[in-house]
């Protein structure tokens, strides 16, 4: 019994240790800065949400998607989120009316985040742990993809996506700030 107690304590400590291990350099120093740049680019590339798309608007983003990821490594969560965004923006962008330079830079920065985070995460293997946070993220991005496809990648569909992703990144910023001490 005593041995079991000891073992459980050691295991808990070890697990907590790994979970709370210092994030890699990129996550600690660059992730936040480049995320801020991404948010600014998303805001600046177009204007306010157009009125004509108000009817088609959907509010998809779940408020607590990042709050449920307490136990997971920041880099892993970040990598997942960035990958999803990258994939989303790989769709056809022909109908958008945004500033093309800013759009390209946004995509560039997101891709750069993915590349560097892959170096952080061990092996860079795509792993979805199946826990709360990850599932919510996956479901959310699937919904967004569906919306985009259903509206045939129209300008309004992309405006919805832009609004959603921006909100997503703002929540992500709060998540990083709470988990990473510079």
């Amino acid at each position, binding site marked *: 019994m005593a041995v079991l107690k000891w073992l459980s304590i050691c295991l808990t400590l070890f697990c907590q240790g790994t979970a709370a291990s210092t994030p890699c*350099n990129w996550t600690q120093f660059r992730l936040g800065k480049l995320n801020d740049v991404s948010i600014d680019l998303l805001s600046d590339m177009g204007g306010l949400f157009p009125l004509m798309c108000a009817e088609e608007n959907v509010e998809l983003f779940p408020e607590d998607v990042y709050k449920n990821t307490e136990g997971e490594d920041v880099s892993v969560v970040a990598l997942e989120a960035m990958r999803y965004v990258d994939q989303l923006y*790989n769709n056809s962008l022909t109908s958008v009316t945004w500033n093309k330079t800013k759009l*390209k*830079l946004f*995509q*560039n920065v*997101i891709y*750069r985040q993915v590349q560097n985070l892959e170096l952080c995460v061990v092996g860079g293997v795509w792993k979805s742990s199946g826990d709360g946070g990850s599932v919510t993220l996956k479901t959310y991005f699937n919904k967004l993809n569906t919306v985009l496809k259903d509206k045939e990648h129209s300008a309004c569909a992309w405006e919805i996506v832009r609004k959603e992703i921006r909100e997503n990144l703002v929540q992500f910023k709060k998540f990083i700030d709470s988990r990473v001490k510079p």
Partner: protein
Amino acid sequence: MNVGFALVLLWSLPITNVLAELPQPQNLTLLTLNTQYVLTWDWDQTTTGNAVTFTVEYMAKYKMKMKKKNWSRVCERTTHTRCDLTGSDLHYLGMYVLRVRASADGVNSHWVYKDFCPDIDASLGPPSRVELAPVKNLLDVTISDPLTSTQGSMKEHVPFLDYRILYWSRSDDPQGLKPKVVDSSNNLVTLPELEAWTWYCVMIQSRYDYYNKTSSYTEPQCRQTEGDTPYWQIFLYFLVSMTLCFLLVLLPSYAAFRFYRVLKNTFYPSIQLPAHIQEYLCDSSPGSDMPRLLTADSEAELCCDKLTICPEVLLLDIHVPPPLTAPPSELEQDSGKHIRQDSGDSGIYSTEGGSAQQGRSGGEPIRRDQEVDSWQTLEQVKMEAMGRESADERDLDEGVVDVCV
């Protein structure tokens, strides 16, 4: 036929070899400073003597995985072995892929690729300007950020830009071999613990720690610190200011005061003239600016004493009939005139006599000398002494009355 075909192939092989194999540019290098990027490469001139041109293109890295890639061309068919990428759309935070190939006689070499991310690869320049200002016995160092190609601050791309400041005392360490170090991300740094009145030299380097980027150092700049003012200097300044104050304030005030006194004494003297002299000096009768002792109005001022002369009544035997009243007055008048005319010696009378001749009104006074009055009465006595006492008396009275008004 087969042999012929084979021969043709053998013939063409060397030619195609030469045509297909244009060597690639070698050693792609990027020369960078802040946001200025220049791609250079090596090319062996001896292999192809003909004019060779090069083409440079770039693309964002995330597009590499797409099927449709659209490369942006930067330098087209340039004969130099370098290409300036500063003006093109390369954002500091982006990841890009660059590629170069050589072309000669319509034949192109293979592309040579190079990854480029300015944030990682572009080197950092030193601060654009350094200014030193002494503050008592410390030195304030003002650092201006390194500049982008559009004269903006590099801090917009590199927010965590740090500076390393090396400083040393010129007297202790002329070569700067053992400097002290201060790291700061501020643009205004105060160097601490310096000695007063000493020359210090400063060199500054900009740093981007995350990617281990360091710039070269700025040229050493030297400045002397200051200190508390020595006592003799304070005393000297005091003396000088006191002298100036005296010269500029006190002397003119004193001079003005004296001037005022002089003016006051000239126009408003405290010792006045005696009243009677002043009256004469200050009279305002017209046409006269000379002091007068007598005014024209002396008649009015003249005070006459009434003189009553009572002649002795001489009782004479001769009886002379009293003349008529009218003629005696006329006689008197004539005699008066006579007298007046005789007494015209005194200058004043001539005018008066004239006026009297014209016609006498009742109240017009006759101005006479007292002497003449008495003389006139005596005359009258002589002429009408006999039996004309009453008339004489009357005349006398009249004369007296006439005379004295």
